[in-house]
């Protein structure tokens, strides 16, 4: 297994290199640069000498191959550079935001697992009953509803309900406090976004759990287990669910990786200072260094999550062996 892990990690290198080349070129194809935006975003006079000095300082005048080699060499030596916009180390910019995105991603995943797997299983076991129909309606609504819209609606709802009930509108705090500093304030801020994101996440997972369970429940070994007189609970929990979870675990892994950098609009709606909001800011400001680092972070998260998912397969299905 160790050899398998090492092999997978080595295979990640060309993936990361490809992603690096792609993001590097795409960013430089966009007209304009961070210096003009920074010195002219106020709408007032932009001093051309100041723009030229800024470009020189940031190395934007260097030829592309030089910039690319610098970028690669810095990453190899674990120096991710400084943000072109703020001048802060990229690692610091990301470290500040990562806990927020991670917390939302973990909470949303917990919510998704707690709802999706039991409901998806029940839905499959009670196929074509009112319960199954109800679960499927909930799931389809969750897939069809963008989580940012749900976020806005849930905020408006909270404001309206509290206003009607108390005469004073209330909403969650808009300035983030870490969990260990003030758990109540922290949770009151992150719970709503985690629920809105978790709803869509659980809807997708619920549908996959249901279809996987339906497929597994029709397998010969389930019929054999039943003919042996095993209890239905044991058949479902020990034989069906564990096998049905293989595609579900893959989905959960991919969704989790997506949540790290993909909550672009949700983070803005709830004023969460996370990786998604940072990515939008970096792209808007044409902050190439930061955008490159964030894309690489997201790619690395996907690669790592996929590896973890593959390793989980062996635990779920002992027939799978790594070579």
């Amino acid at each position: 297994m160790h050899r398998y892990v090492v092999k997978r990690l080595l295979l990640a290198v060309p993936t990361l290199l490809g992603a690096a080349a792609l993001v590097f070129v795409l960013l430089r194809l966009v007209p304009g640069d961070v210096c003009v935006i920074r010195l002219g975003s106020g709408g007032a006079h932009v001093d051309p000498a100041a723009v030229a000095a800024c470009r020189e300082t940031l190395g934007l005048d260097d030829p592309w191959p030089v910039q690319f080699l610098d970028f690669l060499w810095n990453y190899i030596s674990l120096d991710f550079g400084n943000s072109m916009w703020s001048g802060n180390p990229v690692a610091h910019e990301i470290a500040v935001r990562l806990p927020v995105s991670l917390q939302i991603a973990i909470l949303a995943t917990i919510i998704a697992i707690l709802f999706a797997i039991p409901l998806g299983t029940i839905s499959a076991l009670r196929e074509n009953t009112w319960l199954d129909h109800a679960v499927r309606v909930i799931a389809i609504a969750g897939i069809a509803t963008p989580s940012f819209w749900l976020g806005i609606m849930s905020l408006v709802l909270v404001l309206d309900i509290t206003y009607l009930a108390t005469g004073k509108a209330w909403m969650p705090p808009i300035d983030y406090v870490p969990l260990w500093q003030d758990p109540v304030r922290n949770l009151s801020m992150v719970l709503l976004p985690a629920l809105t994101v978790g709803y869509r996440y659980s809807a997708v997972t619920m549908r996959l759990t249901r279809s996987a369970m339906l497929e597994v429940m029709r397998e010969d070994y389930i019929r054999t287990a039943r003919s042996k007189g095993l209890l239905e609970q044991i058949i479902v929990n020990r034989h069906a669910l564990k096998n049905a979870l293989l595609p579900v675990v893959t989905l959960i892994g991919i969704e989790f990786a997506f949540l790290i950098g993909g909550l672009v609009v949700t983070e803005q709606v709830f004023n969460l200072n996370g990786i998604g909001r940072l990515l939008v800011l970096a792209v808007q400001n044409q902050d190439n260094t930061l955008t490159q680092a964030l894309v690489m972070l997201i790619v690395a998260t996907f690669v790592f999550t996929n590896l973890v998912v593959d390793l989980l397969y062996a635990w779920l299905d002992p027939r799978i062996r790594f070579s």
Partner: protein
Amino acid sequence: MYVRTAATCIGLGVAAIAIAAGPAGAQTPKRGGTLTYMIPADSPPSFDGHRETTFATVHSAAPFYSVLIRVPPDNPASTTEFVCDLCTEMPEPTDGGKTYTFKIRPDVKFHDGSKLTAKDVAASWQKIVFPPEGVTSARVSYYAMVDKIEAPDDSTVVFRLKYPTTAFLPALADPFTWIYKKEIIDKDPHWYQKNIMGSGPFKFVSYDIGQSIKGTRNPDYYHKGKPYLDGFVGIYAAKQSVRVEAMRADRAAMEFRGVPPSARDELVKEGGKEIVVQDSDWNCGNIITPNHKKKPFDDVRVRRALMLAVDQWKGAQALSKIAIVRSVGGIVFPGSPLAATKEELQQIAGYWPDIEKSRAEAKRLLKEAGAEGLSFELTNRNVDQPYKFVGTWLIGEWKKIGLNVEQKVLPTGPWFQAMRSGSFDVVVDANCQSVVNPVLDTGKYLPQSVYPESYGGYEDPKSVELYQKMLRETDPKAQRVAMRAYEKHTLDTMAHAIVTPYWYRIIPMQSYVKGWKISPSHYLNQDLANIWLDK
């Protein structure tokens, strides 16, 4: 400037009342409390006001700093009045208007306890006007008239100009010109990008990147009795819906940039008497610039036709209901004594009172130029308020004379690049200034060879000559005449640009916030020293 109650804003049948905002002293200010306000940005690029141009820097760090002179905090709407912050009295210029000598207050301390002297003031201004190599100063060109800055002793700063100009004092009151400690900038001129240490009404407490900035009352502040607040918290919230909801729920008392009419109406409707609104014309506007290097916009008849098709007077009225624009103006901010009156504007093409006559003339000019039914692209910035509203309105106006215009909306970077490289037909540009300084602000209409951020791509020696005459004229009446000649030449004779209605700044806030008065710029009056909370 006035404070409007909720009822007037939404027209609930209550007689429209506009309560003139009395001076802050009309009520006795209360001490204490923390003001929580929102900063409509993700974070400032740095804290160095000398280097940055964005309001995010000012809204974050202005409360920590002093400036030499400023617009009066009690009357920031004034476009002609300037008062001392660090100086003891406003000087009368000597040497034929070329020398300004400022005496510096003796009772000012930096937040580290050291004394602020004229040497610190002079060193800060040297950094702004004559930045050393490797140091970026965003406003060097504002101070082209400055020859020397000297500090002959610890209490005197002398500015020597190359020529007398009325543009100097307003430029000196720029809100980004914070006074830094000489010892620090001598050691490291970049230190203030990441650090804060001033002599302003508040001391720096903390900054959570992209989240919030906090300040606490400076007990040694030299304007005795101020600030009234114990402290402040500025929360970064780029998304407008978050800011409106936060104000609704009183998570924050206000923001200082401005909201569109729809957000104001929503807040006023929900908040009733708990929300008050201050509004003002804004020293920002969208300028529509045809690319003179592209056919047929090299033909003045076509450019004039574009101007003549637009009904500024009705358009401004209609747009003001949905967008942050309101007042019709020429090249000078409407609140300035140098601005054209309505009667003067109506003499200029594009401002004629009879729009039918105007459009008939536009059609005639297009026919004469062989540009009937012309199709072109209007390049715009991907910002809703008011860029896209203005762009959409213009397209409708131009359609009325048979033009087919397609709006091409670009993100900020590519939009800038399109203007700088001249790869556009007609572009929605912007001119957003802080202190109302018409003499400098109107430099935007000069040819690109003189003013690099003018994107029309034309050469016009006559324009330069008229501008220079106005720039160096110190007699107010003669200067006004010179400004009219420059304006007429720019907008009418040559039709270099179309000035769309000026932006309108709308600030809704919790009614318990007192002492703050709106100004024509979101950069001004941001040190929070006058604000108090009536709680």
